[in-house]
């Protein structure tokens, strides 16, 4: 394949509840260090949540942080970190050929809730409704804040794709690079969800909000006693380029994106459909020109809900029944569910495996749910498996959106 048709990743910027760069994040995953804690949620009191502690003012003024949103702040941090990591000649770059494509689960709930709360605190005085509400809540807002911060004049938008957002952002960037619409893509996903009461209340109403007296043990996908989702914030933005461009500037290449798929369950608003998940994984593998036994690591979406984990476990068993060497892990035990950021963050956590040959474990399984048993499931302890060539990253979301991204160990 021509180098202009190969898309590679040359920079990573991230913030997760347990790390503010790839090195910290990877080590926390290997050490089974949780980033989930307690947070005070409006009306509801103390709840389990995953919050990030990156420096909001490393790349943004206090005034613009105040004017924007938490999702924008996370995006700006991750984008700047990714660009620095990629060692780009940023000033010499044609910014009109840079695109920003960020996946989001939702956007605007935080600001809307805040405004309504303020209005209620002030005798329903609607004239106190902020003029910043519209620019803060338009759906392109987090990606737009990145362009304002970095003076990017190419296209920007978000991809509203529920909890598949991180993967969908990556896929959009790959497609735009292949189309020649941009020369450089900042892609990934972002979440500010713990700042909104409504998401907590809605998961609680569904009986799907994680709880445990020790918050670090609350998010426990595939465990027999799991009781729901730990809501987290976070972000992960990648620099993607065509291989021809990356080679020209002698860039370090983390990995090559070789396959992807997005499909729809067409089944239910919230309950997943395992058959469609299998189809999605197989479609991505086919697009990459691979067979299932070529995949070395599968990162499960595994959120910690009762039916979601059972469905996906069966889907992964079915999808990889013909492979004995595919290892399976998950990430939400460590960081909770980072919503729109989940897909991109979880992929990042596995990328160092290409170099160290280790599969990081999923954590917090005390008693594996028999319905979630999967061949070669790696949990509670890292596993050295040696040469790793392909990673498949699953991310699924409400309304039945499924996504899978396959990355390959880079070889010239």
């Amino acid at each position, binding site marked *: 394949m021509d180098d202009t048709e190969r898309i590679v990743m040359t920079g990573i910027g991230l913030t997760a509840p347990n790390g503010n760069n790839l090195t910290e994040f990877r080590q926390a995953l290997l050490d089974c260090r949780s980033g989930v804690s307690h947070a005070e949620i409006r009306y509801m009191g103390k709840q389990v949540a995953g919050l990030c502690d990156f420096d909001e003012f490393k790349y943004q*003024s*206090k*005034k613009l942080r*105040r*004017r924007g949103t938490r999702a924008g702040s996370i995006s700006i941090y991750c984008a700047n970190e990714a660009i620095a990591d990629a060692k780009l000649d940023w000033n010499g770059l044609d910014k009109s050929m840079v695109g920003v494509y960020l996946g989001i689960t939702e956007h605007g709930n935080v600001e809307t809730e805040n405004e309504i709360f*303020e209005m209620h605190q*002030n005798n329903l*005085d609607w*004239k*106190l409704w*902020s*003029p*910043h509400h519209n620019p803060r809540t338009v759906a392109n807002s987090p990606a737009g804040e990145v362009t304002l911060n970095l003076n990017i004049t190419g296209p920007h938008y978000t991809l509203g794709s529920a909890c598949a957002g991180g993967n969908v952002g990556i896929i959009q960037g790959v497609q735009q690079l292949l189309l020649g619409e941009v020369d450089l893509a900042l892609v990934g996903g972002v979440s500010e969800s713990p700042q909104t009461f409504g998401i907590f209340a809605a998961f609680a109403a569904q009986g799907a909000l994680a709880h445990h007296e020790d918050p670090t043990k609350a998010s426990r996908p595939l465990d027999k006693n799991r009781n729901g989702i730990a809501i987290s914030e976070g972000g992960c933005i990648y620099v993607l380029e065509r291989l021809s461009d990356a080679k020209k500037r002698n860039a370090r290449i983390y990995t090559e994106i070789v396959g992807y798929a997005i499909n729809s369950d067409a089944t239910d608003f919230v309950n997943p459909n395992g058959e469609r998940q299998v189809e999605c994984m197989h479609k991505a593998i086919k697009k990459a020109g691979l067979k299932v036994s070529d995949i070395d690591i599968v990162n499960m979406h595994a959120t910690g809900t009762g039916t979601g984990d059972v469905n996906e476990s069966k889907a992964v068993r079915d999808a990889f029944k013909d492979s004995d060497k595919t290892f399976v892990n998950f990430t939400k035990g460590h960081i909770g569910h980072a919503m729109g950021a989940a897909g991109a963050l979880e992929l990042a956590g596995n990328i160092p495996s290409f170099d160290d040959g280790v599969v990081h474990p999923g954590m917090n399984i005390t008693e594996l749910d028999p319905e979630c048993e999967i061949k070669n499931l790696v949990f509670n302890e890292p596993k050295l498996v040696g040469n790793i060539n392909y990673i498949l990253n699953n991310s699924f979301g409400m309304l039945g959106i499924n996504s899978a991204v396959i990355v390959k160990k880079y070889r010239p």
Partner: protein
Amino acid sequence: MADVRQIVIDIISDIAPDEDVTNLDDKLSLREQLDLDSMDFLDIVMELRKRHKVEVPQEDYPKLATLESCVSYLSPKFA
């Protein structure tokens, strides 16, 4: 009697926390001395309403141009 000058400075400090507000010239326009844009002035109006129940109609926004004009315009509303 409320210290209107200090009230306005306190609001500006919250809206534009990166700015140094210690040596402002009362007669010079605030926008000449500080990195403030039209949205910041909307925020000032909003905070006056929220914190002090003082309403500034849109046609009076130009009266917030300098610290001196702020004091002269707002003082009767704080009386």
